[in-house]
């Protein structure tokens, strides 16, 4: 009897489940139907992906709108995500054969993608782009061997971001171009002493891979050789780290726990928390530093060795045409618009660094205001101090960036000596590059 009663009562639930499934199935089917109505309008549909935040999305969408206006037969669908996930997604798309037509790539990934033949040559063939308006030395940063696999989508340069307000209140002068590493130590010590130990002169650069590159470049060496091996010796690395450790011990640079927060980005680093008065960074990050600080910040060129700053014009990011693209010609047109056209420059602003086309950059510099003006003026004043741009870093570069943070972090927390750390680094770095 019981069992008989149960089914009639319970069958309501069963009906509900079936109804839900029916609804789900019909929804799924409508979604399916909506997909097919794409390219029937005679237009070319391009896809373009980049990384960045919402504010960059707005400026990029504005530039795309201008491109579509000038090319009524092309429609551009855009995809964007945050930097880390963007690269994971791109790797999946490339492996699965479904990457967008035009891709924004990171310099560190360029060699890897170029070697797996996923990027088209931009100097000839279907995706030919006119990049004669760019500085040829800077444009060659997008080369892999003889192939122009990418073009820079913005220029940035190394700098020290310095807290002018803090220095004024302490009575320490802002460092000037042409200063040396000895001056860095004196400057840092002065800030430390005058603030009674509350503020360090600078964030310890020992975890920063790119700062080490500048250090080597000033001495006529580089991180990598042409064939993608390590271009420096263990003694070079020990020299850099011993100098940084000296700064840290004298109080000129931040202690280990504060240095570790550098990895969190400009909003939470020692400069933003007012525990350091200067920090090594690329000038394209200046606006983010300025937004996170109440104090007024200025840009100062790197310290010199024998008059050399070791600074160079670095592509903040690059653009490439995907080898699997069905519309390489149109993708190349969009690429050319984004690196050459004054209208694109107007819409994009400088959130990606200086505009690639030199002629357009000049007029952009002339009309710049606010944070953009600080960066453009800094770049213009230091153009003569730049060394040539090195070739793109090999595959594995990304691992070395985190390896540097981990091992120097261990050294500064007192877990390892500089010599032992440098030895470990060399061994692990060679392994990472050999893969």
């Amino acid at each position, binding site marked *: 009897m019981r*069992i*008989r009663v149960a*089914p009639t*009562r319970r*069958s309501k*639930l*069963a009906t509900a*489940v079936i109804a*839900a*499934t029916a*609804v*789900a199935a019909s*929804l*799924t089917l409508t*979604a*399916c139907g*909506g*997909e*097919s109505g794409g390219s029937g309008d005679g237009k070319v549909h391009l*896809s373009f*992906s980049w*990384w*960045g*935040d*919402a*504010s*960059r*999305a*707005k400026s990029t*969408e504005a530039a795309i709108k201008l491109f579509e206006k000038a090319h009524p037969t092309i429609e551009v*669908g*855009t*995809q*964007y*995500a*945050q*930097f*880390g*996930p963007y690269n*994971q997604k791109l790797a*999946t*798309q490339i*492996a*699965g*054969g*479904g990457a967008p037509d035009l891709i924004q790539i990171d310099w560190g990934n360029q060699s890897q993608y170029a070697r797996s033949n996923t990027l088209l040559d931009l100097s000839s063939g279907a995706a030919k782009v006119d990049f004669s308006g760019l500085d040829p030395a800077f444009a060659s940063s997008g080369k892999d061997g003889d192939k122009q696999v990418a073009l820079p989508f913005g220029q940035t340069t190394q700098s020290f971001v310095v807290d002018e307000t803090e220095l004024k209140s302490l009575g320490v002068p802002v460092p000037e171009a042409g200063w040396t590493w000895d001056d860095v130590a004196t400057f840092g010590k002065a800030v430390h002493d005058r603030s009674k130990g509350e503020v360090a002169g600078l964030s310890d650069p020992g975890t920063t891979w790119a700062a080490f590159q500048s250090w080597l470049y000033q001495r006529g060496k580089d991180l990598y050789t042409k064939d993608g091996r390590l271009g420096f010796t263990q003694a070079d690395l020990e020299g850099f780290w011993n100098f940084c450790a000296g700064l840290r011990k004298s109080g000129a640079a931040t202690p280990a726990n504060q240095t570790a927060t550098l990895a969190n*980005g*400009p*909003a*939470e680093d020692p400069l*933003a*928390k007012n525990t350091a008065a200067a920090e090594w960074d690329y000038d*394209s990050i200046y*606006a*983010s530093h300025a*937004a*996170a600080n*109440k104090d007024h910040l200025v840009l100062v060129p790197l310290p010199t060795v024998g008059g050399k700053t070791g600074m160079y014009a670095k592509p*903040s990011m690059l653009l490439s045409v995907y080898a699997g693209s069905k519309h390489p010609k149109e993708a190349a047109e969009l690429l050319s618009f984004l690196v050459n056209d004054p209208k694109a420059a107007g819409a994009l602003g400088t*959130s990606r660094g200086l505009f690639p086309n030199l002629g357009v950059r000049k007029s952009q510099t002339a009309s710049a205001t606010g944070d953009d003006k600080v960066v453009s003026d800094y770049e213009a004043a230091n153009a003569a101090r730049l060394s040539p741009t090195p070739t793109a870093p090999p595959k594995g570069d990304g691992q070395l960036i985190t390896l540097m943070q981990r091992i120097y972090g261990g050294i500064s927390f007192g877990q390892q000596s500089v010599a032992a750390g440098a030895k470990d680094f060399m061994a692990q770095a060679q392994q990472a590059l050999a893969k």
Partner: protein
Amino acid sequence: MSESDQALRGGPPALFGRHGGRGRGRSLLWHLSVIVVVLVVVYPVIWMIGTSFKPATEIVTSNRPWPLHGTLKNFSAGWDANPGVTFGHFFMNSLVISVLAVAGTLLSCSLAAYAFARLSFPGRSALFAVMVVTILLPYHVLIVPQYAIFKTFGWINTDLPVVVPKFLATEAFFIFLMVQFMRGIPKEIDDAARVDGCGPYRTFLWVLLPLTRPALITSAIFAFIWTWNDFFTQLVYFNNTDKFTVPIGLSLFVDQTGMTSYGPMMAMSILALLPVFLFFLAFQRLLVDGATSSGLKG
């Protein structure tokens, strides 16, 4: 510490609770320690709520969890942060795929579980083993081949790659959960149903499915929360801004190379937590039911 440990495990011992002064002291101590633990656990949430009302300059510079100069701007800024679409659009997208995922999981996994638990067919134990092993496969091993397949189908940038697998019983964890639950239901009930004239389908629909309700509810809650919070699958398959879901929208507030907008991000995070919170609240009673009463006993 050991005292509060004991308190956490067993609550105030009834023996002392009934006595006068000393018992009250114990009970007070117990409550105090519980309050401290709750504060520690809840602090991030309090900080998040406070931060969502702080102006941008106050977020990094002050350690206070509550705002000095409260503002509602973060909510409007976060809502309209992306060009062309509002955050409400992301909520709708998330809701659609989460509800479909729940429906798909319940339907397909309960059917599969019924087959494994009650029907006998050749290769059943081997297939069951294979299914359990798929729980152990890391997601990153599957994503590239899956992407290639769905691309061939032309399903990229639609809801299909996220929803269809749920209708095909690919979530082995839920099948496993339901199988274990169904095995606890006495077989005699099936026999009785058969005597009354039910075939396998009617036995499933009218007898077993209602009895597995606690397991179904547990699965529904988890399927909803997992889909609502899932970031990577949705990131990979959705390309256009108007297909974006809440987790993707939230991730766009943080960028290492650009500005990080903590205020709007916290404001939208609170809104994103609400559905999960409400869903949990609504089904919490049933969840406890499921844990305490497992079908029929005796």
